[in-house]
């Protein structure tokens, strides 16, 4: 499977009479976009705002971030099984508005939504402060249950990303990058001397607002399976979850999975990247056992020498992480796990809810309990009041002058467990 990603670098975003890309500027027809999103009868009101790097702007509570993409050649469309038909994606050509994103906000769904500051100290902790963001402010109709609210906003974000992505369809990319995965046998024949490596991608599926969708299927209901890495780049996996903002994999993260990117970087040189094993993080013990058995079985069946395992969320999924790690290690396959830590505000507590000596190669994305002080911003897109109740906030987080004191947990993408960012922690 071979995919060309055509990257169109977006330097600025502005409202305009027509949605289009011109000289690196994304113009957005605000009314047209609002009309499209307002189709959903569960949304009472929809507004669109822009947030650019360096502005004194705070977006919160953030639900999802999505990168606009469009299929230019090859079967299927973006977000298969959700917005497009369920064709298998990941081949041909996909154009990307690099440097732009759709961010969804509006009334809080539950607790676990995040903050994106476009400037100031908070901006260092979220990758989305560096993007030109088209922010959807979606307010639900009264009396909507949380999961219906989440579904409405999730679809709104995807629809907006698809709508904006279509503006890139006929634009000449600034850069084209090609990713190719051969069939297992061909790949092994081509690189007989390189160690075979797979990527075990754990998908958040604790249920009830903690969901991820694979080609439209709720990941709770899958058994572990194998995917080509390029399928992710066309939106085969999307986020539908409200786990803590710092370590949820937004749809943007899935589209730009950095482990996939960095494994491709070494592919054919230092290792042979043969594919992605997706698995879930269900809450029932039998599910955990079945899924970890299967991820280990698939790794064994592929005959790989090593795997990287990434986690999503924390606490309960720590058990899935350790089960995957230990069962795969016991097959004689070497593992590296990517996680983050909840070591308490003072950093003195044990960081994970489960551990095993076989997990001897850990990459950490930092301690999510560390406190950060965020200065007031000139403008807030969304609602600032949830600062006291979102995960990572506490009674008194929000001060009268608009400053906020929260754990990093509340910042979208701060301790991402795909290793998207540079934050990490060490022992003292």
């Amino acid at each position, binding site marked *: 499977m071979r995919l060309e990603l055509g990257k169109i670098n977006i330097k600025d975003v502005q409202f305009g009479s027509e949605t289009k890309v011109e000289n690196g500027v994304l113009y957005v027809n605000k009314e047209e976009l609002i009309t499209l999103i307002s189709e959903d009868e569960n949304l009472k009101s929809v507004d669109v705002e822009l947030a650019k790097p360096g502005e004194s702007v705070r977006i919160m509570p953030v639900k999802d971030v999505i990168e606009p993409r469009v299929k230019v050649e090859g079967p299927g469309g973006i977000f298969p099984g959700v917005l497009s038909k369920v064709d298998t994606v990941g081949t041909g050509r996909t154009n990307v508005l690099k440097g732009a994103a759709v961010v969804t906000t509006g009334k809080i769904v539950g607790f676990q939504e995040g903050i994106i500051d476009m400037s100031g100290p908070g901006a260092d902790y979220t990758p989305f402060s560096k993007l030109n963001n088209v922010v959807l402010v979606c307010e639900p109709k009264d009396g909507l249950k949380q999961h219906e609210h989440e579904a409405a906003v999730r679809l709104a974000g995807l629809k907006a990303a698809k709508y904006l992505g279509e503006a890139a369809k006929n634009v000449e990319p600034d850069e084209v990058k090609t990713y190719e995965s051969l069939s297992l046998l061909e790949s092994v024949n081509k690189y007989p001397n390189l160690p075979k490596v797979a990527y075990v991608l754990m998908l958040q599926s604790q249920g009830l607002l903690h969901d991820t969708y694979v080609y439209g299927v709720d990941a709770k209901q899958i058994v572990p399976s194998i995917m080509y890495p390029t399928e992710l780049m066309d939106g085969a996996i999307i986020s539908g979850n409200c786990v803590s903002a710092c370590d949820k994999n937004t749809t943007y993260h899935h589209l730009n999975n950095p482990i996939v990117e960095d494994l491709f970087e070494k592919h054919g040189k230092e290792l042979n990247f043969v594919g992605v094993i997706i698995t879930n993080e269900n809450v029932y013990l039998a599910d955990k056992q079945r899924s970890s058995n299967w991820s280990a079985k698939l790794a064994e069946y592929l005959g790989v020498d090593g795997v*990287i395992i990434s986690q999503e969320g924390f606490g309960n999924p720590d058990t899935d992480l350790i089960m995957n790690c230990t069962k795969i290690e016991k097959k004689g396959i070497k593992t590296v796990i990517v996680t983050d830590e909840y070591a308490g505000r003072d950093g*003195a507590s044990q960081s994970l809810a489960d551990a095993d000596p076989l997990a001897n190669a850990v990459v950490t994305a930092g301690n999510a309990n560390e406190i950060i002080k965020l200065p007031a911003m000139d403008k807030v897109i969304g609602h600032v009041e949830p600062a006291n109740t979102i995960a990572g906030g506490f009674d008194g987080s929000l001060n009268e002058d608009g400053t906020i004191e929260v754990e990093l947990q509340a910042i979208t993408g701060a301790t991402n467990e795909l290793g998207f960012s540079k934050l990490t922690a060490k022992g003292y």
Partner: protein
Amino acid sequence: MSKIKVVHYINQFFAGIGGEEKADHKPEVREGAVGPGMEFNKRFKGEAEIVATVICGDTYFNENTEDAKKKILEMVKKYNPDIFIAGPAFNAGRYGVACGTITKAVNDELQIPVLTGMYIENPGADMFKKSVYIVETKNSAAGMRKAVKSMTKLALKLAKGEEIGTPEEEGYMPRGIRKNYFAQERGSKRAVDMLIKKLKDEDFTTEYPMPDFDRVEPNPAVKDLANAKIALVTSGGIVPKGNPDHIESSSASRYGKYDIADFNDLTSEDHETAHGGYDPVYANDDPDRVLPVDVLRDLEKEGVIGELHRYYYATVGNGTAVSSAKKFAAEFAKELKNDGVDAVILTST
């Protein structure tokens, strides 16, 4: 800046009083440096000075710990030092425990920076490395010069309130405290590089060494359930409506104690969840789903259990630090015992 004032603690042996036969030596304080204190003073190069030395026999300290602690704290307080240094104790077990105990006490009670040093297998190391800075030394006094060299460097930093580097940089035993920083490369790249090293059987450094887990064996089963007083405790966040104690949705810093004497059934009218880790709809619809008061009332009526305790305790387990959870439980476990509770049903989510 005036000279940094140091009070030094040593045992009877290093004070030149005697060996084992003098180990019952009671605490005394002498002006200036004694024994290894001379080496410290030399290394301080005028930046700091030992103003007093506390001497105590190892046996005396360990057999009269409370008394020794009290006396020594008074002695230290009088000099109001900028830092308190004990040892180094090398592999002397009772001396190591004394150094750990007294440095921790001085730090806790007098809020003065403290430092000690010992061999990694000294029992005092495991007992106190998380509480105080312990410089790792050789296992005998032959390593005195090297130990004092590392200790003076760290002592000056501590006394001046300077930022302390990693255990590798400063030579102290890891205290298990995690601190964030921005790495050169993103996490995914570090993971790929680590895997390549692991595949080649090359050395690699894990970023998070696995912790030693505190595993708790369950108690034996309750024999006489029909006469047992049962309490409910939950980390599922069920609180009286409005969350009167403002328990956080994640990383809880507090717990609540609530009276359920008047409830046979929890409803959305009177209770809700404060927990941020799951969709609250079903817990709010019927809070008994997380805190089963209704079922326990049935069992009470049927005589299966003796009675349901009138108070339940609740916190939010979502992202809550183990140290906080331990602290909460230590407090309310005492109350539960005093209230004659025989068994507790812990519900999570």
